[in-house]
């Protein structure tokens, strides 16, 4: 529904189709018929947000409940934002066109730290007070979930409720509680106190944080009967868990414009830099039959001709080849192509390759993450150079000529030799191409090497590590660039400035809230976008607030320091993380969950891979 005031602006902005709704499968309800209006806000553009699977799942789930109407809200791009402010148009929901100012819930998904300023900016655009304490009534409850909720402290002053872990169950329980409290005329404070009793709910205002003189945390004390430790929630049975049979099909092109089927949650690997690999434990798979029928239904209901099998590492699905065989039975006739993102170097076989390119050929991307074997052992990326080369050889023989390789620089214990090894590995891939007997005739090989900068994250074995300074990262980027001697390799690197800010927020505490508020007042937004990001401006904000960002990004913590997220529990114990950190320094890898249990703590959820029969035991 397009509201009249918005209509006047639409022909003055780029891609107005992002601001109008009206897509196939969008859910429009009568507002008189619902008790709870939920604004599901993605703090980035329409194209990015509409590509996000979590939002699709929760949007459909919420709307499957009669008394809830969930609408989508995205951050308007800067041209639209400017016009909305000039014309005094508050942020609105795409389905109704109504301002979200007085909705019951304003929910954000926190996918990356650099979207925090967009969260606050969207509240501002919606004319909602940004501080939790300034919203006194029992309405417009601001909630947030997603991976960044595992250390939500930098935005703790603004959000009423954080959902830890997977939202399918806990979100509905909280919405139901709200509805009840509303009917009983309870206050917001009473509602929050009750909500804090639900497992998976973290109400930051119910915790007092005190600090030592050196700025580290002295204590975190719950009040009003809130739990001392908040546990994440998770879905154990993936087959019975809610999955949408329908996606809103955007009319303008989005980043991932295809059907997406989740095949499992979690990851068996335990790469030591990877937060997702730890916070989503244990691995829980959907069965091949359920995946097959969900894929088919999704394609039928959306009209998409491509479905992507999504997970953290799709080739680790235990029955990947039989699954692809099932899918191929109908996909070819219905002209649907199957894509497999997140392929591991050691998971790409002839068998898989032949099954994913039946209709269309997608690009090939591998992430060895580190150049030398020693450093790959440090980060527990159990991939050997021979495996990468033999995989590339399979691909080259199969007609591919473009390979993308992703690496990180600034990893713990990294030396200049490790950095130069990235170039060497790239060169080996180039050489592999020329030694392939069946390489495509008359074509040259193209290897793209991309590096991002390592950002230490909470709930990983590297949560105590300092990040390299921006200068160190620049030196390493330069060193790598000079180590590459062939034109067959393209080198791209991710800007170190944004990685630095990401590192500040990732392991930040509540003292950063002040800087967030100042940044919001100054109009910061879209920090994840080169057009908008300015480290210089952020440094001014930190200076103004008396905050030293290096305290968060570049400081080594001791194992006994109280970390800002220590009162949140994601299943993996601190003892396990310390063990893994020590093993990293001994260059010792840890076998993955299916080979050997390393007693990380996730078995307490009583399901998933922790209770599968191990092949070695059979």
């Amino acid at each position, binding site marked *: 529904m*397009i509201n009249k005031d918005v209509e*006047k602006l*639409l*022909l003055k902005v780029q891609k*107005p*189709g992002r*601001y*109008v*709704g*009206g*897509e*196939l499968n969008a859910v429009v309800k009568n507002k008189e018929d619902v008790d709870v209006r939920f604004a599901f806000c993605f703090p980035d553009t329409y194209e990015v947000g509409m590509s996000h699977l979590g939002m699709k799942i929760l949007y459909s789930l919420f709307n499957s409940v009669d008394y809830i109407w969930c609408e989508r809200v995205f951050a308007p791009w800067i041209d639209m934002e400017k016009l909305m402010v000039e014309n005094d148009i508050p942020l609105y929901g795409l389905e109704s066109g109504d301002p979200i100012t007085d909705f019951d819930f304003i929910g954000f998904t926190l996918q990356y730290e650099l979207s925090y300023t967009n969260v606050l900016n969207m509240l501002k655009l919606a004319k909602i007070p940004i501080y939790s304490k300034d919203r006194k009534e029992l309405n417009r409850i601001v909630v947030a979930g997603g991976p960044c909720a595992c250390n939500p402290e930098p935005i703790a002053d603004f959000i009423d409720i954080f959902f830890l872990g997977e939202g399918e169950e806990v979100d509905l329980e909280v919405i139901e509680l709200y509805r009840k409290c509303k009917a009983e005329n309870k206050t917001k404070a009473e509602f929050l106190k009750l909500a804090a009793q639900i497992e998976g709910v973290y109400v930051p205002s119910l915790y007092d944080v005190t600090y030592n003189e050196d700025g580290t945390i002295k204590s975190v004390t719950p009040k009003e009967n809130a739990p001392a430790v908040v546990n994440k929630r998770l879905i154990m049975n993936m087959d019975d868990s809610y999955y949408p049979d329908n996606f809103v*099909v955007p*009319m*303008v*092109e989005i980043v991932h*414009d295809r059907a997406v089927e989740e095949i499992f949650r979690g990851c068996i690997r335990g790469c030591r830099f990877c937060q997702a690999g730890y916070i989503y434990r244990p691995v829980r798979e959907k069965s091949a039959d359920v995946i097959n029928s969900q894929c088919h239904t999704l394609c*039928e*209901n*959306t*009209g*998409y*001709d491509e479905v992507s099998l999504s997970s953290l590492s799709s080739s680790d699905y235990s029955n990947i080849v039989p699954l692809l065989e099932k899918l191929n039975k109908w996909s070819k006739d219905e*002209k649907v192509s199957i894509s497999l993102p997140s392929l591991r170097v050691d998971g790409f076989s002839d068998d898989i390759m032949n099954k994913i390119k039946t*209709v*269309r050929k997608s690009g090939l991307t591998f992430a060895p993450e580190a150049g030398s074997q020693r450093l790959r052992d440090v980060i527990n990326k159990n991939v050997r150079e021979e495996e990468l080369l033999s995989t590339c050889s399979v691909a080259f023989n199969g007609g591919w000529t473009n390979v993308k390789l992703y690496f990180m620089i600034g990893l713990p214990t990294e030396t200049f030799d490790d950095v130069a090894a990235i170039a060497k590995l790239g060169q080996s891939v180039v050489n592999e191409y020329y030694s392939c007997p069946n390489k495509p005739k008359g074509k040259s090989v193209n290897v793209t090497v991309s590096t991002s900068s390592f950002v230490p994250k909470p709930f990983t074995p590297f949560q105590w590590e300092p990040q390299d300074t921006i200068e160190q990262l620049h030196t390493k980027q330069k060193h790598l660039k000079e180590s590459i001697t062939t034109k067959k390799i393209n080198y791209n690197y991710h800007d170190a400035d944004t990685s630095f800010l990401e590192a500040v927020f990732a392991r930040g505490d509540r003292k950063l809230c002040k800087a967030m508020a100042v940044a919001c007042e100054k109009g910061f937004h879209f920090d994840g976008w080169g057009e908008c990001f300015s480290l210089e401006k952020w440094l001014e904000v930190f200076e103004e607030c008396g905050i030293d960002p290096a305290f968060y990004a570049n400081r080594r913590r001791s194992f006994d320091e109280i970390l800002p997220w220590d009162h949140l529990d994601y299943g993996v114990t601190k003892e396990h993380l310390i063990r893994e950190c020590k093993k990293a320094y001994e260059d010792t890898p840890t076998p993955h969950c299916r080979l050997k249990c390393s007693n990380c703590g996730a078995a307490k959820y009583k399901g998933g891979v922790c209770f599968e029969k191990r092949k070695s035991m059979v």
Partner: protein
Amino acid sequence: MKNVRVWFKKQDECIYISHLDLNRCMLRALHKSKLPIWHTEGYNPHPFVTFALPLSLGFVGEKESMDIRLLDEEYPFEKIREELNKCLPKGIRVFKVTEPVMKPGKIAYASFKMCLSSDKISCDRLMEICKELFSLDEILIDKKSKKGVKQVDLKPSLVKYSLNRQIGCVEINITLPAGSTNNVNPNLILDALNKYYSIEVNSKTTRLDIFDENFEEFK
């Protein structure tokens, strides 16, 4: 195999999607509908579709058309309409399906209804300005194309039109050259008003119909 012409309206939210987006949207609807249509046989097979005349972003289309190729020659036209409407966003509505009579290459003119208004000046004043503009001997404006900016005279194209003062807007009904050889976008009138009188005018524009060189309705 048989060619059929699918006639549809593009309205409401869907006026804000570009021609490229419309194309993708139609391909998905065709895929979802499972109509027996012919797919291209290249490396990436997709349904074969051609649009008679692309519509600018922001315009309502009353009589848009798209040609597809049916594999089943007996397939009822009415069923095509029904099935496609089930698969399209509500802003795109198929209203009839016919056998194509004219080739899209024959298109020479298109008729538009424009409702002009401005925040800065009254409708009466806007009406005066429009009359004045249309009576100039020469209306030179910059026309942007892929090849660059070219100055053109709009005057010779302003032949069949009427100007009417309506409640809240000035309504222009106008038929302009259209098609692949000489295409005049009615938005050029807004550019001309801006250039000659320095006023920013908004228009709600609807493409009503399409014609060949003899002003025969495109069928």
